[in-house]
């Protein structure tokens, strides 16, 4: 760039002016980093030439803490990982314990879990969409996102007694059936929501400013994304068809007819489109689950004290951010020997250095937003 400009004596300007790289510290207390994420960005002019992520500000030692609790007592703490999609975290953990116990969860409980999971996924995507759009400069999207998210949180409150961290599932099933009138409210939400998603798309998808800020920004190829173990919409934005709900079905996801939205270019725009289309698919799944809700028990046969056989299990669910995995080790006692969380935000964040290289500094904020990270899950 600077080399093309000629100095007064005809020599390239670069020889006359001394230029050097600038190191810029972004975060950890920066609103656009979505939590306490700190990035050390090396800049050449406005271009990013290198980036280092510094994380761990929110490390609470959750994996250690679990080892001092019984299997049941450890359940609520996982809500605190990804605190905007708590139900999905809970599902991952109880699913892993059920797998180790070889426990059959009743069909009805599986369907109720699907309904709550997908509602939570929509709530997460709405909050993500609002904050991401706010980062890029579209302020009004946040209000709409929060408004619809409230409706979902109200549904959670009515059913689970809690809005954000409901500790939704016990090991073996679900606690409650839908309360009286809940299903009608939920169906009304399902009817209204597609129009709202249309509104979001009207606001953003065709918006010239939005497109200019997101298209071709933060590109990551499919091969790079696979090699970096990215998952969720961040991986699917690059065109890789990997959704745990389809690939390794759990909780009766094989019963439902839905599509996995895929991107092509692996840029911020495609990741945005994937998530917005995922919301529509989630609505489809909820409708099918409510229509086909089977009769039966709410909870499988679990003892009061849970003592899985000695051994290990790895169970993954498609959380809002990507593949959420729990690796649990039991020594045949009441307490877990080891619980490890494969946190999708943590691993997706690895991709940021590849995405940001060569981008403008203003785009870094858009790229962080497009990864949909929650630092509670990154740092655990």
């Amino acid at each position, binding site marked *: 760039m600077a080399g093309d400009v000629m100095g007064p004596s005809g020599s390239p300007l670069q020889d006359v002016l001394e230029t050097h790289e600038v190191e810029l510290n972004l975060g950890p207390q920066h609103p656009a980093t979505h939590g306490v994420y700190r990035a050390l960005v090396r800049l050449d002019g406005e271009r990013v030439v290198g980036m280092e992520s510094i*994380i*761990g500000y929110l*490390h609470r*030692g959750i*994996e*250690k*803490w679990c*080892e*001092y609790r019984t299997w049941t007592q450890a359940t609520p703490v996982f809500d605190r990982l990804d605190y905007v999609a708590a139900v999905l975290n809970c599902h991952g953990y109880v699913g892993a314990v059920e*797998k*180790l116990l*070889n426990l059959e969860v009743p069909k009805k409980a599986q369907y109720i879990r699907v309904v709550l999971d997908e509602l939570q996924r929509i709530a997460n995507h709405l909050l993500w969409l609002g904050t991401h759009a706010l980062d890029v400069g579209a302020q009004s999207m946040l209000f709409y996102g929060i408004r619809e998210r409230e409706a979902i949180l109200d549904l959670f409150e009515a059913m689970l007694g809690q809005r954000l961290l409901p500790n939704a599932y016990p090991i073996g099933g679900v606690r409650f059936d839908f309360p009286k009138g809940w299903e009608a409210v939920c169906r009304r939400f399902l009817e209204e929501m597609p129009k709202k998603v249309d509104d979001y798309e009207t606001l953003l998808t065709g918006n010239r400013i939005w497109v200019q800020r997101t298209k071709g920004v933060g590109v990551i190829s499919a091969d790079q994304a*696979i*090699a*970096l*173990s*990215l998952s969720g919409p961040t991986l699917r934005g690059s065109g*890789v068809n*990997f959704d745990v709900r389809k*690939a*390794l079905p759990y909780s009766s996801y094989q019963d439902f007819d839905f599509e996995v939205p895929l991107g092509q270019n692996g840029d911020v725009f495609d990741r945005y489109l994937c998530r917005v289309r995922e919301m529509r698919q989630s609505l489809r799944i909820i409708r099918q689950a409510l229509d086909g809700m089977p009769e039966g028990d709410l909870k499988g046969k679990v003892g009061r004290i849970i003592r*899985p*056989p*000695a*051994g*290990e*299990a*790895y169970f*993954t669910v498609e959380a809002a951010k990507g*593949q959420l*995995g729990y*690796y649990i*080790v039991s*020594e*045949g006692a009441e307490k877990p*020997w*080891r619980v*490890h969380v*494969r946190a999708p935000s*943590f*691993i997706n*964040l*690895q991709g940021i250095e590849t995405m940001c290289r060569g981008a403008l500094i203003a785009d870094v904020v858009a790229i962080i937003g497009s990864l949909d990270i929650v630092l509670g899950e990154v*740092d*655990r």
Partner: protein
Amino acid sequence: MTDEIKAPGPPEPPPQEAGGDAAPVEKPAAAKPAAPKAPAAPKKWEPTGEVVLNAPAQALAERFGESVRGVKSPCGEAGVLVDKARLVEILTFLRDDPGCAMNYLSDLTGAHYPINDKKFEVVYHLYSLEKGHSLRVKVQLEDGEPCPTATGVWPGADWMEREAHDMLGIVFEGHPNLKVILLPDDFEGHPLRKEFPLGGAQEEMIRSNRYGKPVYLPDDVEEARKIVEEQRHGR
């Protein structure tokens, strides 16, 4: 080769964490013929269940023979325990072999088993995006024994290995940037080791202090360390 990893005979009981009373019992056992709890069989962590070998595990067994052994699983998951020396070779084979095509490193972590002969395990969870099969690959390590890095096979192993290094102190040989990731820079110890107290240095001090009263450590690290040392030596 296989036996060497699995169990090198019944050697002296592994140094258990709370084995303080086991050693003194051993000495009078010579005088007393009926040793009360002398054959306290060194409890070892071992998974129960059956060995499941899926397609990639069988391909591995054919190709690498003795270096690969099946691991039992109570829930029907396929898993293998491999030789540390051939780990990278095996992981590369799993990634590149068209029959396995396990191109996705889903997870990498470690676990600490102080009662086992080999105290540490590094666990790789692999998945094939094409074929849809998964495999767990494990490797066992002594305390302080380095593990070859998988960053050459999957760049995504970078942060996962850094995390395992933080939490368990496993050294990954050849890792390009093995520094702390989740813990503070000046943190000492590895929290997910079993001997590490849940409350950290604070709890350690409360336990070791003579009056059993909580003593709050000053912010200054050097000062705090001095107090902990004093308390530990009962002064």
